């Protein structure tokens, strides 16, 4: 590694006022867009790419990376405050973030999310700087067999997010996977469960289902609680935010989760087709499994927020690895970035490390800067964002509903999606009422298409002989790890149930 060139590239980026301004503007836009349910970082980058046409490469990359990193953090704001993840990558943040807000710790949850996002992003950027050629080599060996087993590995975390009843969690997961099969089948284009409805041919859109299951269901349940007298309509958070960054004690608690989340996020982000939405669940399950008190996860602890937020921002660095080293985008945002590079006359790929090394290092620096900009914007915004939960519930619930329904519409500009959102709102309300966990559906919706496509591709390539999977050592490795995760999660769940039973019996004694 050429250290002199690396340092001069960093200095070049960090001391360039245009790059600084563009990255900061990108971060502001990204955080705001990410916080709106239905608006993803991908949409933000796609929307602002025309503005980057007239700029030099590095300011435009700074702008786009600012949106990317800001959007990753922004998604957690609505997940924490209104139970509606702004982006799919923030889906796991609500597991602990929303309960924290319900306990009157919304400001703390936001500051932990912001700090962890920043640290995860820095970890991702560092790994990208030093290990990108190596990681890219491993990730690019993935065929349909490895991708299938990666999806199976992702699904193995379902048990740890299932809550008290594993059978209910698994029913939810299979239901979610079944939902993924609605529409034209990806290989032969045969209609499945479309019932003659044209809008169903393309399958169910993920975002309306996500908003319905979490935000709309929460509003319906909230109205029910208020009318039944189980919740006050005037209830609001009275949390006073004295600091925008987590205190030393909290950082002391969450740093292992941040580091492991950042590393997991970077490596999963480096695999083309696997992004932040998968990484957050894997990181959550890993950290919960490694915790001394797994029973506290899901009840509103900062560790849960830290594990997921560091993973989704770690992905931003990871996704850049195959883009720069091999010219293959790791996710949809980097696919758009690839277009930006090509427009500027630079072809990412192995040759970029030879002919455009200063540009490569400047991109590393721009990613680091984008994370810093995200931290600045987050610090400035924590108090403002937290004000949302200081609204009375009788005002908050209707606002959440109309914003969520608009978010569902905005994805495809289709009224049908609002109907889908309401339908899944009802499903989510019923499932919550009868204690069926919702998170496994979410994970299944993310991994289902990847699982099916690679399963069909693998079987077609191997004439229907599934046993040939044994010839793929990385795939077998993933499968073994998945089995290990299932066994470990089962043991962990028993431990959780035992501790909860002890906690219930203690007051009686």
């Amino acid at each position: 590694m050429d250290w002199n060139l690396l340092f001069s590239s960093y200095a070049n980026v960090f001391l360039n006022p245009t790059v600084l301004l563009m990255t900061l503007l990108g971060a502001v836009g990204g955080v705001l867009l990410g916080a709106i349910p239905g608006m993803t970082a991908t949409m933000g980058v796609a929307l602002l790419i025309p503005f980057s046409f007239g700029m030099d490469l590095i300011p435009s990359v700074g702008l786009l990376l600012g949106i990317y990193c800001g959007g990753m953090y922004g998604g957690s704001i609505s997940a924490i405050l209104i139970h509606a993840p702004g982006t799919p990558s923030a889906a796991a943040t609500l597991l602990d973030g929303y309960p924290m807000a319900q306990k009157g710790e919304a400001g703390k949850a936001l500051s932990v999310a912001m700090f962890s996002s920043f640290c995860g992003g820095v970890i991702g950027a560092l790994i990208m700087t030093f290990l990108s050629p190596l990681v890219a080599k491993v990730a690019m060996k993935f065929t349909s067999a490895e991708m299938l087993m990666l999806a199976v590995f992702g699904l193995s975390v379902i048990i740890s997010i299932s809550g008290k009843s594993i059978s209910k969690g698994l029913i939810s997961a299979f239901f979610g996977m079944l939902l993924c099969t609605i529409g034209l089948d990806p290989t032969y284009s045969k209609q499945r469960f479309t019932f003659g409805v044209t809008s169903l041919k393309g399958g169910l859109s993920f975002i309306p289902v996500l908003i319905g299951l979490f935000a709309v269901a929460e509003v319906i349940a909230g109205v029910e609680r208020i009318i039944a007298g189980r919740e006050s309509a005037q209830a609001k958070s009275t949390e006073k935010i004295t600091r925008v960054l987590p205190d030393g004690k909290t950082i002391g608690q969450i740093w292992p989760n941040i580091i492991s989340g950042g590393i997991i996020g970077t490596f999963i982000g480096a695999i083309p087709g696997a992004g932040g939405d998968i990484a957050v669940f894997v990181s959550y399950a890993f950290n919960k499994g490694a915790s001394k008190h797994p029973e506290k996860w899901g009840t509103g602890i900062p560790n849960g927020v830290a594990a997921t937020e560091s993973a989704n921002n770690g992905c931003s660095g990871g996704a850049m690895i195959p883009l720069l080293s091999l010219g293959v985008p790791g996710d949809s945002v980097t696919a758009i970035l690839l277009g930006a590079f090509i427009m500027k006359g630079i072809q990412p790929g192995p040759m970029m490390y030879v002919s455009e090394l200063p540009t490569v290092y400047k991109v590393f620096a721009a990613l680091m800067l984008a994370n810093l900009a995200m931290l600045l914007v987050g610090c400035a915004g924590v108090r403002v964002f937290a004000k949302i939960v200081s609204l009375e519930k009788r005002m908050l619930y209707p606002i959440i509903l109309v914003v969520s329904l608009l978010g569902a519409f905005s994805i495809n500009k289709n009224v049908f999606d609002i109907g889908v959102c309401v339908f899944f709102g009802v499903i989510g309300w019923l499932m919550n009422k009868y204690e069926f966990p919702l998170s496994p559906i979410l994970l299944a919706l993310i991994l289902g298409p990847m699982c099916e496509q690679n399963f069909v591709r693998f079987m077609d390539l191997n004439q229907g002989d599934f046993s040939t999977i044994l010839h793929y050592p990385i795939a077998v490795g993933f499968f073994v790890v998945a089995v290990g995760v299932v066994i470990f999660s089962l043991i962990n769940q028993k431990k959780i149930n035992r501790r909860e039973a002890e906690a219930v019996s203690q007051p009686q004694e």
Partner: protein
Amino acid sequence: MDVKKAQTKAFSNLIASLVLIAFETWAWVQSGKIKVAKNAAVQPSTFPRIMIIGMAVFTAVLLIQSIIKLAAMKPDDPLARRAETLDPFRDKGVAAALFVILLCCAYVWLFKGLGYVVVSFLLSGIIMWLIGLRKPAPLLLISALVPLGMWLVFYKFLSVNIPMGVLQFLRDLVDKL
């Protein structure tokens, strides 16, 4: 135990498993109607059927668990606690939730005709009134300004064209400005 068996969580699990079995049977029948692909190693119906089988296996587990629990129910068992009801006549909270669902269905139906701002004004206004906000000024202001503000953000800054229905003139006005 003062809760009748038919009101326990174990019983609600039993009912849920029966509903799920009915759903899985229906889904299996529907999967049989998926067209066959020629020379395919995996048929388009294979993956959905694997999922239905997986769902059915764990539904059976839930069913057996609830039958065993109901047969030998201990008073301190978590599943012996009272389950949530769906009866709107017994629980006014459920009645309100069902009313909100009905409102949401009307929202979808009226969205294109009346436009986002008007239907959202009606939906949020009615819900606010329902859950206790009776002061006209905040009720009307919030119900009107939030959808209007969201429409402006989406239309002007994010270029998302949202149906405005009867308020179409607002879009023309904003375009002129």
